[in-house]
């Protein structure tokens, strides 16, 4: 039977067992929306801005391991989506983005709502396609899903001109895809793995550094088993939180620009470093020259060869899928005759405990003003540490990462790579769609939340009982912090003036709003939000201390061990 291109798109999504498509209709995707209207195998979520469609699909994927799908129209639909696509690309999130395009005959004519979608998105997708013939449509969509979720995951875009969605051909969905130019390595090289195990067992001051790759590849359980077996200290990157239980004794906290003293010092002074699904980026190791001043052997496991030896030279590279490589390592440990040097390890732990004793995350409590860190600590208590936490970008993001201890993977959803303000609320929506019974909170600030505030309307339409934790300090907090520390207290444009009344705003959208100004009211308000208002979206506007800064801090360009602590100031 002949199907139209639009019918084929719908059938492909059904074949892929898609549950939700996040999108926004427009001229070039009308045929697709018409077919979408006629089916009920998957649901469409209507957002209020295309950026939010991509963030929601992205968080749907982050919180569930499934591929996120979005559908937007040509021209401005695409350009609005670009921020979302770039966000997903930087954090390697598998997405399939379907975009409408003007009819093939109009391409290049500066038609209404035309843009060079493939050209604009090329640098921020894993791959993209322009489908010029309806006969190629099904295979292209199959390829898009295959590329998005295999190897190092990422967003894949399929641009479909309007006439293609109306042309007809036979529908035949390919069972599998073979591409001669794309064969990701899964299995790690056994010789390299042996070498790595030898190094690890010989280590005097070992350290494990695990990133977002552990979450993406569902390796948290295997990693935990391996690290427990080895008895080594472990740190997670901002993207890797939850990849190892945050409350475990062997966990030394997050590392990097706002990492703990124990994590950063252990990272700097270890003699063997096992890096897993991480990429030594500038926010993690600071200045690479300073990092290289200490000699250490580095083992690096990553599915993407280009992540290895990019910023830091690696001694034992292992290209492969993280859980497969870790399983192989576990098997080797079982049969290994050598055991790690218990005496050296005990001394190393003693040193780490000394660093830990600095208690670098302590902050001055205040009886009159709400400290932002305190809100996160209470949020952790009230939700039993078991909520899905999405965040925007800035100080609140780092406080959430520091003070909410994630024991499970996929619970911490933030834009780590691109650092996209406006991510938090749509991400909470996507998370809730993927986990319909879960507690979902969005930790944000009064600046970030306003970048996608329109989604409060989407939340109303779909009755999403998200809890918005707004740490309102009337400043672009992280900008203000840098201006205070590095720009002589000149607060250029970082004060947020003319703020809306968030309580009224929430109410105007049909939600519950609360403003909390006293430290004593923090916990009761949270409890009310999470019990009494369990089924409501609650906007909790916490008026917090304006001067609080995120510590420890490694200034840009400095070395990992050159931290500024709260007590230094």
């Amino acid at each position: 039977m002949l199907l139209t291109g639009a019918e084929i798109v719908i059938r492909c999504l059904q074949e892929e067992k898609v549950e939700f498509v996040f999108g926004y209709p427009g001229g070039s995707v009308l045929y697709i929306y018409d077919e979408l209207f006629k089916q009920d195998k998957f649901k469409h979520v209507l957002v209020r801005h295309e950026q939010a469609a991509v963030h929601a699909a992205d968080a749907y994927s982050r919180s569930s391991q499934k591929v996120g799908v979005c559908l937007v129209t040509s021209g401005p639909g695409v350009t609005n989506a670009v921020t979302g696509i770039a966000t997903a690309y930087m954090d390697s999130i598998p997405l399939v983005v379907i975009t409408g395009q003007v009819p093939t005959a109009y391409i290049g004519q500066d038609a209404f709502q035309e843009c060079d979608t493939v050209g604009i998105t090329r640098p921020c997708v894993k791959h993209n396609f322009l489908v010029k013939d309806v006969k190629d449509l099904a295979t292209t969509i199959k390829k898009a899903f295959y590329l998005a979720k295999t190897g190092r995951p990422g967003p894949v875009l399929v641009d479909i001109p309007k006439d293609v969605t109306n042309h007809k051909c036979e529908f035949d969905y390919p069972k599998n895809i073979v591409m001669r130019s794309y064969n990701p390595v899964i299995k790690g090289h056994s010789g390299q793995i042996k070498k790595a195990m030898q190094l690890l067992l010989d280590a005097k001051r070992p350290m494990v550094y695990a990133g977002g790759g552990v979450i993406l590849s569902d390796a948290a359980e295997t990693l935990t088993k391996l690290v427990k077996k080895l008895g080594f200290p472990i740190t997670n990157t901002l993207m890797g939180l939850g990849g190892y239980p945050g409350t475990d004794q062997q966990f030394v906290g997050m590392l990097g620009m706002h990492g703990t003293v124990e994590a950063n010092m252990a990272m700097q002074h270890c003699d063997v470093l096992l890096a897993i699904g991480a990429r030594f980026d500038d926010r993690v190791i600071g200045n690479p020259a300073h990092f290289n001043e200490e000699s250490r052997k580095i083992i690096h496991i990553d599915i993407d060869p280009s992540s290895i030896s990019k910023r830091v030279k690696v001694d034992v590279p292992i290209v492969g899928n993280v859980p497969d490589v870790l399983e192989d390592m576990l098997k080797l440990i079982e049969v290994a005759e050598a055991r790690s040097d218990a005496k050296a390890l005990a001394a190393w732990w003693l040193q780490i405990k000394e660093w830990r004793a600095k208690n670098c995350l302590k902050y001055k409590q205040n009886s009159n003003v709400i400290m932002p860190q305190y809100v996160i600590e209470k949020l952790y208590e009230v939700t039993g540490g078991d909520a899905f936490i999405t965040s925007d970008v800035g100080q609140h993001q780092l406080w959430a990462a520091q003070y909410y201890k994630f024991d499970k993977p996929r619970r911490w959803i933030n834009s780590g790579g691109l650092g996209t303000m406006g991510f938090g609320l749509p991400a909470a929506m996507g998370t809730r769609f993927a986990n319909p019974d879960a507690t979902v909170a969005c930790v944000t600030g009064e600046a970030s939340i306003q970048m996608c505030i329109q989604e409060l309307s989407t939340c109303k339409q779909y009755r999403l009982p998200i809890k918005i934790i707004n740490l309102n300090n009337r400043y672009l907090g992280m900008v203000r912090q840098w201006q205070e520390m590095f720009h002589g207290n000149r607060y250029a444009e970082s004060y947020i003036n003319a703020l809306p009344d968030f309580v009224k705003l929430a109410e105007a959208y049909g939600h519950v709003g609360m403003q909390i100004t006293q430290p004593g009211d923090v916990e009761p308000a949270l409890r009310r939000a999470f019990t009494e208002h369990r089924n409501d979206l609650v906007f909790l506007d916490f008026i917090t201390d304006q001067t609080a800064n995120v510590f420890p801090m490694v200034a840009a360009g400095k070395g990992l061990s050159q931290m500024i602590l709260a007590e230094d100031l």
Partner: protein
Amino acid sequence: MRHIISILLENEAGALSRVSGLFSARAFNIESLTVAPTEDASLSRMTIVSVGSDDVIEQITKQLNKLIEVVKVVDLSEAPHIERELMLVKVRAIGKDREEMKRVADIFRGRIIDVTESTYVVELTGNTSKLDAFIEAIDRTLILEAVRTGVCGIGRGDRILRV
């Protein structure tokens, strides 16, 4: 160090811009880039000359391999290879310069492939330094126009780049 990187890639629309976009996005250097379909019409072969430290060249090859349409990447300069470039130079050829130009072209094994009363077009192939040397050898003021293809290269002996 100067490297010659050979790439086999799917002969599809947009493949070239993926490669050139990668170089500009990651601030890699391109001295020259040539591309054309191979004997198998589904594949293109590209040759890029780039200058960079070993670390940079390693990143370039890794990043190229990461592009979905790239089938194979080889750094030709890692082993014995041959490189060639074609140049067409239009020169003024009047009076005593006409004779001189012919002589220099002969020395460089160039061929004169177009003649008018006042100009020659000289065709020259060789490696980059030979072409540079020709430009140096003739009177610069006589050059009216010069066009070069950029380098293409191939491994010597048993070194073969194919699917």
